[in-house]
């Protein structure tokens, strides 16, 4: 087990308004989320001395303009002018979960006391994947000429392999989409709060990239979320009940640029990250009371459930049936609605929900007696990370 388990905790969390398009710059969303997280902690902005983010703009082919389409650490520093600032970082080999892990490491090292991590996501006008013109450079020279590059195709190819090798039907995925939308109705910050979804809606929706229909894809939105992390003893003096970080991991499987559709890479990425997390925390999948698993595209949940060890390979779509992932089920899953419910904010919202469930702060969607709270943030293949939060330090 990890010597540093439960030494760092998530305290406050914050959200901006989430909308399809916005009239204010992305920096304003990030600021709103960060202010919210600091206020939720009961801290003053002047207490914050650490900053971390993953600023990537996942919509391809659009200009990266700091403050408009991304919000870098530099942008946040310029806005906040923190008098106590002692540490900051932007990560690249992992998605936002890596920024959270670096903040944990900085707090353990004692180089800052109160770190803020945010993820801000821009939805450009026009086509989300603004594909390049007449030429295919770099890794895309082997994929773009064949019409690979639209929404979800990279995920969709692995999904067809999973379905057909395991003799499974995409119809079973309706349960995930409908259950998560039900959970969304307990999350007023979510894009689809107030908009229910039925099985009939799922089956009637248009196909995007087979096997994905519209409701297998998270909707691009503009918005930001943020968290405050601090050492356990400091967290206990703050307003919210702390969510202690019992362990974390990151994917170790490497992937060569331009290789496409490898189901085994998703599985190896996920299992390498989860293995670290189980070993560090001392828990195993059967100990988990509630799980958040990244769902930018629905099939990510399959790869997550199987590679993290919650069920056997080929069984994830059967595993999610019969009420198992409901709020009172055996493994309540994506209890905040997931990205399919909140809109596309990548993995930090999964981390927020994992922390809220562990600290008993999830309101009407709180899972009863939740102690061990698992998070798989981001798709396991390339940028995935995993976490365990607990209510009771051990």
């Amino acid at each position: 087990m990890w010597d540093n388990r439960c030494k760092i905790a998530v305290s406050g969390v914050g959200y901006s308004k989430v909308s399809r398009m916005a009239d204010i710059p992305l920096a304003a969303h990030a600021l709103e989320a960060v202010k919210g997280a600091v206020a939720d902690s009961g801290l003053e902005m002047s207490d914050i001395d650490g900053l971390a983010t993953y600023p990537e703009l996942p919509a391809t082919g659009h200009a990266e303009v700091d403050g408009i389409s991304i919000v870098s650490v530099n942008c946040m520093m310029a806005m906040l002018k923190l008098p106590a600032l002692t540490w900051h970082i932007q990560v690249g080999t992992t998605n936002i979960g890596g920024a959270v892990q670096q903040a944990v490491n900085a707090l353990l090292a004692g180089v800052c006391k109160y770190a803020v991590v945010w993820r801000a996501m821009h939805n450009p006008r026009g086509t989300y994947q603004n594909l390049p013109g007449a030429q295919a450079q770099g890794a895309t020279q082997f994929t773009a000429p064949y019409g690979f590059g639209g929404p979800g195709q990279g995920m969709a190819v692995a999904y067809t392999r999973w379905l057909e090798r395991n003799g499974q039907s995409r119809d079973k995925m309706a349960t995930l989409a409908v259950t998560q939308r039900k959970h969304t109705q307990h999350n007023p910050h979510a894009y689809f709060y107030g908009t229910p979804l039925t099985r009939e809606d799922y089956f009637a929706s248009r196909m995007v990239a087979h096997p994905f229909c519209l409701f297998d894809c998270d909707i691009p939105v503009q918005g930001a979320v943020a968290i405050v992390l601090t050492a356990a003893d400091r967290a206990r003096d703050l307003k919210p009940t702390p969510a202690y970080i019992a362990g974390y991991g990151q994917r170790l499987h490497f992937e060569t640029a331009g290789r496409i559709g490898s189901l085994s890479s998703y599985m190896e990425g996920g299992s390498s990250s989860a293995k670290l997390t189980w070993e560090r925390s001392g828990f195993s999948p059967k100990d988990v009371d509630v799980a958040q698993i990244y769902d930018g595209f629905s099939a990510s949940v399959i790869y997550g459930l199987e590679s993290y060890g919650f069920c056997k390979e080929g069984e994830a779509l059967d595993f999610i049936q019969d009420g198992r992932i409901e709020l009172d089920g055996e493994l309540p899953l994506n209890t905040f609605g997931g990205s399919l419910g909140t809109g596309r904010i990548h993995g930090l919202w999964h981390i927020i929900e994992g922390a809220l469930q562990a600290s008993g702060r999830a309101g009407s969607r709180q899972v009863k007696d939740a102690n061990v709270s698992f998070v798989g943030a981001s798709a396991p293949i390339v940028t995935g990370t995993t976490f365990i939060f607990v209510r009771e330090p051990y």
Partner: protein
Amino acid sequence: MSDWSKVTRPIPVPNEWTKPFWDAAKRGVLELQRCQSCGHFQHPPYATCVQCMGIDLKFEPVRGDGAIYAYTIMYHTGDKRFASAVPYASIVVELDEAPGALLAGNLLEAEYTEAKVGRRVEVIFEPLTNDITLPQFRLAR
């Protein structure tokens, strides 16, 4: 059948790693990068052998027979260059002689509904420009 006649495919731009692949395709030959130390084929080309760290890599011909490893049927028309062909099958092929080296392609000369994981395919060549010919796939004959 998907109508490819009005599709404007992006033209691959060979670089120092990939030029031999495209030069061979122009001659109607499928060549993949092979490690001269351990014999491993890999695609896309990479700076070192991903199996043994070998740096002696050469392009060698492979037979264009393989199976569909995975596929997707594209319905979304956001990419206007391909909009006239939807629905169409974009496939990933694993060649018999190069396990683990996954090649993208389209399933040509067949209904898109014929794309299935494990189905046998063979390479064909689709000239794009004077300089670039695309390896593509059809059902094995």
